[in-house]
């Protein structure tokens, strides 16, 4: 009973945050709502006893990704409000088939999943130590590959960021 109430609350926070992130007019509000949705998702992970994933979700998404989005918004458009502009583009119906396709894919894979058989849960508790051992033994190749990819992306970002546009010499004091 209590579990269901907590789950419904977390789900409501996540969904309301996600919808608000799409609907708000002010980009900074959108970014903060997205952060709220990330936090709600972390709460759902924690309710599922996935401590590590839940804390990592907060640390990375709320702590880093949300800040990154905020920075991007401020540095590009200044987060200004345009009250006259509509939130939907005139060709919004073009997105319908894509959305329908995504939903169909999700529903298809969810229905095909063995989880739906509602097996009695075996109380799988994964201590952090076990996760670490798995990551360092069984999954060390994917981990290293992801690390290499991220390092390459980081270096690329630095190279792009280094190229400063040459400003014309001004005589202003």
């Amino acid at each position, binding site marked *: 009973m209590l579990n269901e109430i907590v789950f419904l609350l977390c789900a409501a926070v996540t969904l309301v945050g996600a919808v608000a992130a799409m609907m708000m007019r002010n980009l*900074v509000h959108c970014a903060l709502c997205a952060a709220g949705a990330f936090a709600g998702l972390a709460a759902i992970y924690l309710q599922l006893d996935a*401590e*590590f994933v839940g*804390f*990592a979700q907060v640390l990375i998404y709320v*702590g880093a990704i949300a800040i990154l989005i905020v920075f991007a918004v401020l540095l590009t458009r200044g987060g200004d409000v345009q009250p006259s502009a509509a939130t939907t583009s005139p060709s919004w119906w073009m997105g319908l088939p894509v959305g329908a396709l995504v939903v169909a894919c999700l529903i298809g894979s969810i229905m095909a999943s063995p989880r739906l058989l509602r097996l009695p849960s075996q109380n799988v508790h994964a201590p*952090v*130590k076990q996760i670490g051992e798995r990551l360092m033994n069984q999954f060390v190749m994917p981990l290293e590959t992801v690390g290499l990819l991220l390092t390459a992306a980081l270096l690329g970002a630095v190279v792009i960021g280094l190229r400063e546009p040459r400003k014309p010499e001004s005589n202003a004091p």
Partner: protein
Amino acid sequence: MAGWFPTSVQPLVSALLAIACIMPLFGLCFALTTIVERKVLGRMQNRFGPNRVGPYGLLQPLADGVKMLTKEDIVPFSADKTLHFLAPLVLTVPVWLAFAVLPIGRNMSAIQLDAGILFFFAVGSASELAVFMAGWSSQNKYSLVGAMRAIAQMISYEVPLVLSVVPVLMLAGSLELNDIVAAQGTYTIGGLACWNVFTPWGFAGLMLFLIAATAESNRSPFDLPEGESEIIAGFLTEYSGFKYALFFLGEYLGLFAVTGLAVTLFLGGWHAPFQWLEWVPSWLWFAGKFGALIFLFIWVRATLPRLRLDQLLNYAWRFLVPLCLINLLVAAVWYWSGTWKSPVAVPVRWLVCAALIALPYHGLARILRGALPPPRKYSYAE
């Protein structure tokens, strides 16, 4: 105690009891630190400090609290009202959570989490968003500049803060703070404790951690976000009354949390420095080390002038982060050399590890001094 309540409400009661202990304890600690800080700063700057309220000015925090509570709460006309209201709450509420995993004495941590240290850093990550909300919603240039400075600083210094903790986790083999304390609970010959700070990597780690912690909690010499001589009060400019007090409470609580973590990770937690002193209550040892570190922070604040923003970021990325990575290597060597079976093993191990951290420190400092950027040219201020 366990028999007083039915089994169904026992978890709730124990959680409430922990909250009822932690909140007044660190709240009082906040009040005490404000008066001690002002007194010590006054002493170091050769003046009296507060001395009007109560004996020796000891009731000053009370007067401050009454003043803050009764002040008018001003919200700027063009401010984003909701965010302006939410920002102090988002800053202060998560910080309280961090104390839940700190072992402040033998068997004295509110919750035992498998990934305790991850929890600690996760709840701390909300403060960046809160500072941004405060700065942006105020609709004030100085507030926004302060917030951007704060975020740049917090993101940069979070990297060395987390990296300097990793060696401790490696050597203890656990993310649980109680296990880390237990790993430092043995004594060597002469009864001296085996704290992490008494090893080369531990000493370097503590120094790196304290520097990063000073920057994370926006304290002098890293107080650029509030640099009052440049940008009024940064993201606090448009706050008054109780909201302003809440920001200060949040900042001091954040400082207490990282100080407590430093004590736990490097200074042996609640263990006594000598075996024959174990009879002293464990929480007293924690409080003593905690107080000593807080005094160190106050001392640093009274001593060092404020950095410039480019110095601040260069210091983090070019100096602290490489040293943290090297320290990781030193910890690995220390761990691997622990199995050496030779009469000269101990001194050689110490020498190698100390040299591995001291030489890069010296070399990096020399290289960076040679590679200083040319004097900055100001476009508008000449």
